């Protein structure tokens, strides 16, 4: 809400400075976001008169003007088309700050002609948007007069009105709040009722529960012309354009007292007024010249024939007032805010009236507003008023709160003297009778509970006396993180330690891509963009998109991870916490000491393994040779515990890379954090370490196995031969090629044997070796290579 100082002063008698007023407004919850001092903007500008106009010798569209500054005649080059001899306008001389550009004017030479100043457009002075020509002032003030004498040097406060303070969309409401702070005296007088002289020929029929009260009046023989200067000044200062007296009066009531009204040209109405729901298919051309298609349930003000106004939002063009209007019908009604908001939203119709109605206007103001507007119409336009018509049940708003003044101390921790609290409430319009607080009608939407009353008092009183009060100490837990939360911290650090960089990507993604990732179709009905319309079923697609973005920026080798939710249901809490990562391009950059290689499945496996270690995954994880469809079927796998899938790893399927237009290999992994069982809570102390004093020895074996035999089977077969003595099995060579049949591979294995009590004899070692060979053969069919 833009509030002018001049308008405020009509409702508040104050000597406070603009800064004091702004600070006060902010401190009571009416935050001032900006102060515009129009007088400051006009500093240095003067009224000037054009004495002569010549064409510029070197440019068609420029003129050379002789301009009087009062003291002297100067030369000004000007591009505006509307200049003429004898015209008065606003002149800036070199050194003056031009508000619109935020720069000081410099002396210039334009197309070879010196210019000693600039005549200004409305836009250049920040007084409006017109830039088609320079200001053409119709003024008697002589050249040389400061511009501030012509234009009001008003101050505009841009006040951020919170949704609960509908009453502050009027100058009156803000003024009353300010008066409670002691910064000035509230100036307001209830209007004196106007005596009607005849019965209104138009009656009101109430047929819609969204309008509980409609106060009407017929006024005949009015003359609609310009409104008086005081009203025009008020409206202009508040940012409105004066139109005609009848329109200006309703606008004035709107911004001054937050009281939307409507005036119909009564001669254009057919029969009575009907407040009813719109009919399906009914249309209305409104004052903004748009044709609105109305729906059932929207409240309209209709005559006997059709809808003539969208209730509380906008009047119809057909029945609007014009210069020729003679008889009018004045509407002061109350409409249900929820209904107004819904109608306005569906029709996408913005108006000052809607803004106020949907936040809730003063429910007790229909009669008073009608009286005040009638008085204004009679004073300004003349005419004769009918008896007032009050239709409807009226609005229920009376509200009394049982209040205990100790409530202030209870909620705020400090005391405010009761007489001070009462005085604040009374200045805000509340009535206090002992412990009974009567809420004023214009605040009845907002103030309903004891806590609301406390807020009112404290808001005005301020928090300067708020004491220092640390929270009561509690038993300090060893950690506030639950075990799964600790895992998120640990896995982040472990993955970053492996060279992966943490990304945070949207929880949503493009449904066209989600279908490749086992989508469950968890869609958003109103996405921010059409390619962010589905909750991600996996973290991988957003990471792949990030890979692509990075590669398009020239970063070919990408290492990213994310820890966040994936979604498979719309039921709250049916989401999975996942740690996922991708590597793209080469594992290392090009280097003189290492061969370059692309990332592969074993990078993904290593990433996943390290991450699993960091979150204390169980030691008996198995590896399954299967993974979801977005992985390369031959180069991917999963860590499982029986049927429980803990993680996937592998190279991304080439077809998926093609979908994302990625041209380098990508390795990826996904760890389902919630599926990883928590380690059993055992003693912190470790199993006792048994160390042998005897040297371990190693033996190498080469096995020839069918290609599909899994290396892990051979390794575990060997380990199982003697779990005590065989302490390590490692594969140091894998061979497939010419020297073997096509379906065979050779695995070279080093076995570490650690005797515990006594040195092993050659014979014992020989026996163990045979056991190893037999065990491998038995479990995998692999033979010792000849």
């Amino acid at each position, binding site marked *: 809400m833009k509030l002018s100082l001049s308008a405020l002063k009509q409702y508040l008698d104050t000597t406070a400075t603009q800064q004091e007023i702004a600070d006060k407004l902010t*401190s*009571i*919850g009416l*935050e001032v976001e900006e102060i515009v001092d129009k007088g400051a903007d006009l500093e240095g500008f003067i009224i000037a008169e054009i004495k002569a106009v010549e064409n510029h010798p070197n440019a068609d569209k420029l003129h050379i003007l002789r301009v009087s500054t009062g003291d002297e005649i100067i030369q000004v080059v000007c591009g505006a088309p509307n200049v003429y001899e004898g015209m008065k306008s606003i002149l800036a001389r070199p050194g003056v700050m031009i508000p619109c550009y935020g720069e000081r004017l410099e002396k210039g030479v334009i197309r070879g002609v010196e210019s000693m100043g600039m005549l200004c457009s409305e836009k250049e002075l920040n007084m409006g948007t017109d830039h088609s020509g320079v200001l053409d002032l119709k003024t008697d003030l002589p050249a040389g007069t400061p511009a501030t004498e012509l234009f009001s040097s008003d101050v505009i406060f841009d006040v951020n009105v*919170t*949704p*609960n*303070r509908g009453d502050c969309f009027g100058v009156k409401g803000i003024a009353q709040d300010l008066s409670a702070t002691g910064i000035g005296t509230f100036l307001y007088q209830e209007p004196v009722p106007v005596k009607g002289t005849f019965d209104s020929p138009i009656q009101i029929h109430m047929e819609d529960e969204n309008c509980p009260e409609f106060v009407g009046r017929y006024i005949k023989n009015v003359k609609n012309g310009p409104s008086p200067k005081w009203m025009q000044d008020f409206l202009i200062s508040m940012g409105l354009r004066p139109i005609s007296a009848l329109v200006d009066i309703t606008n004035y009531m709107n911004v001054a007292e937050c009281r939307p009204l409507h005036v119909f040209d009564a001669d254009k109405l057919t029969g009575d007024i009907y407040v009813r729901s719109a009919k399906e298919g009914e249309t209305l051309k409104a004052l903004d010249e748009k044709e609105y298609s109305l729906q059932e349930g929207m409240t309209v003000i209709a005559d006997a024939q059709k809808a003539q106004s969208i209730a509380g939002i906008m009047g119809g063009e057909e029945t609007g007032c014009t210069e020729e209007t003679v008889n009018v019908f004045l509407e002061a009604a109350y409409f249900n805010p*929820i209904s107004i*908001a819904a109608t306005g*939203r569906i029709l996408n119709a913005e108006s000052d009236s809607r803004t106020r109605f949907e936040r809730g206007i003063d429910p007790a103001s229909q009669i008073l507003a009608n009286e005040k507007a009638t008085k204004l119409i009679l004073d300004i336009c003349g005419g004769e008023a009918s008896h007032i018509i009050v239709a409807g049940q009226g609005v229920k708003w009376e509200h009394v709160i049982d209040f205990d003044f100790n409530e202030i101390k209870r*909620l*705020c*921790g400090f005391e405010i003297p009761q007489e001070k609290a009462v005085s604040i409430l009374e200045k805000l319009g509340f009535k206090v009778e002992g412990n009974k607080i009567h809420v004023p009608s214009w605040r009845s939407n907002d103030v309903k*509970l004891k*806590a*609301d009353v*406390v*807020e009112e008092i404290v808001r005005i009183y301020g*928090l300067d006396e*708020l004491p220092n009060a*640390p*929270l*009561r*100490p*509690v038993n300090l*837990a060893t950690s*506030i*993180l639950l075990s799964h939360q600790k895992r998120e911290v640990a896995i*982040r*650090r472990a993955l*970053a*330690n492996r*060279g992966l*960089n*943490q*990304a*945070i*990507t949207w*929880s949503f993604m493009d449904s066209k891509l989600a279908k490749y990732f086992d989508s469950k179709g*968890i*869609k*958003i*009905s*109103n*996405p*921010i963009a059409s390619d*962010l319309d589905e909750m991600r079923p996996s973290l991988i697609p*957003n990471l792949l998109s990030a890979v692509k*973005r*990075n590669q398009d*920026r020239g*970063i070919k080798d990408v*290492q*990213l991870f994310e820890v966040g939710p994936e979604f498979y249901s719309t*039921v*709250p*809490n049916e*989401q999975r916490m996942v740690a996922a990562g991708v590597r793209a391009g080469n594992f290392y950059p090009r280097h003189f000491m*290492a061969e370059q290689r692309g990332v592969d499945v074993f990078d993904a496996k290593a990433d996943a393994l390290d991450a699993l270690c960091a979150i204390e995954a169980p030691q008996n994880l198995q590896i399954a040779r299967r993974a979801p469809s977005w992985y390369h079927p031959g180069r991917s796998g999963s860590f499982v515990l029986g049927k429980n899938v803990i993680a996937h790893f592998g190279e991304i399927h080439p077809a998926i890379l093609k979908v994302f237009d990625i041209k380098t290999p990508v390795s990826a992994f996904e760890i389902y954090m919630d599926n990883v069982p928590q380690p059993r809570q055992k003693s912190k102390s470790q199993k006792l370490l048994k160390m042998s004093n005897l040297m371990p020895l190693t033996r190498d074996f080469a096995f020839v196995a069918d290609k599909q035999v899994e290396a892990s089977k051979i390794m575990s077969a060997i380990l199982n031969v003697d779990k005590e003595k065989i302490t390590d099995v490692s594969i140091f060579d894998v061979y497939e090629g010419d020297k073997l049949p096509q379906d065979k591979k050779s695995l070279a294995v080093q076995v570490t044997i650690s005797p515990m009590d006594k040195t092993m004899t050659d014979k014992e070692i020989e026996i163990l070796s045979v056991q190893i060979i037999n065990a491998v053969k038995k479990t995998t069919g692999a033979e010792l290579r000849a």
Partner: protein
Amino acid sequence: MEQKINKMREEILNAIQTADTLVELDEVRVKTLGKSGSITAQMKELGSLSVEERKSAGQLLNVFKTEVATAIETKKAELEEKELNERLKSEMVDVTLPVRPQVNMGRIHPVAQVMEEMLSIFAQMGFDLAEGPDIEDDFHNFEALNIPPSHPARQMQATFFMENTVDKVLRTQTSGVQIRTMENKKPPIKIVAPGRTYRRDYDMTHTPMFHQIEGLVIDTETNLAHLKTTLVEFMKLFFETDDVSLRFRPSYFPFTEPSYEADVGCSRENGEFKIKSGAGWCELLGCGMVHPNVLKNCGLDPDVYQGFAFGCGIDRFAMLKYGIPDLRSFFDADMRWIKHYGFLPLDIPTNTSGLSLNGGLKR
């Protein structure tokens, strides 16, 4: 004998001196002191001399033998040093070459880092951590929080709605966790709840997803003074300065009453943001006393129970503390951005060693 030795001495010492390599030197040793060396031969001959002669000649010969052996050892040491020096010279490398390719450390996202910093502080203050789902129902996101159906926050422009559901939305605030906590636990309650939140806004300063942390304290005595003191302490610890001033500006939130926006004193000099009292104000977070209707909706009697709640943007705190300019860049996963603004995995915020480092060499 003496003559003989003198003659040999000159020859042998000369041979030792002129030896260029350890191999040459060893040849001299073999030729003189070896089994069939010249000095050994002389020693063998001593047996053929008379007792008198043997005694004096033997003495001379022994002295000579020691002299030669010493000369060889000395020369050997000299040659060894020379050889080592030559080897070292030949082994010189360019140490300005880069190290072997290895995985350089990745980075922790500033939001995750700042979240850990905040949790570390709240842990110190005795708060528990709570969580809630990203997809929420209308009751927890709106209804229970005293946000009536007509509230502007409910309208299409601010909230994401889930397709094919009656009442599911992407949570617009972490405040739903308040409700879930109060539903499951009796006071005293003292929690913080961080998480992803969603609003239908996308411009210079808004992203459709962002992060919030919610605080809630409910008991029978906690009031506005506790709220302000708690927040001031938090600001001091988080921004790592004692020069913190906090201004409570009355505002409106449906779920608190009275409601405040907290502004922190700050300055912006040469584009650098600093927490500092007296210079200007920066809007930080929303807070207030939990609304009686919210308490009632969770089955608590507002005449008995009371407490405060606050909610703030984690991303915003990260931007302010670490001078990160553009919110939108937080969610772009640009490697250059993460490496620049991210944190090392070993840079773990703790109460013992301090929340943040001041920069230095990074790989």
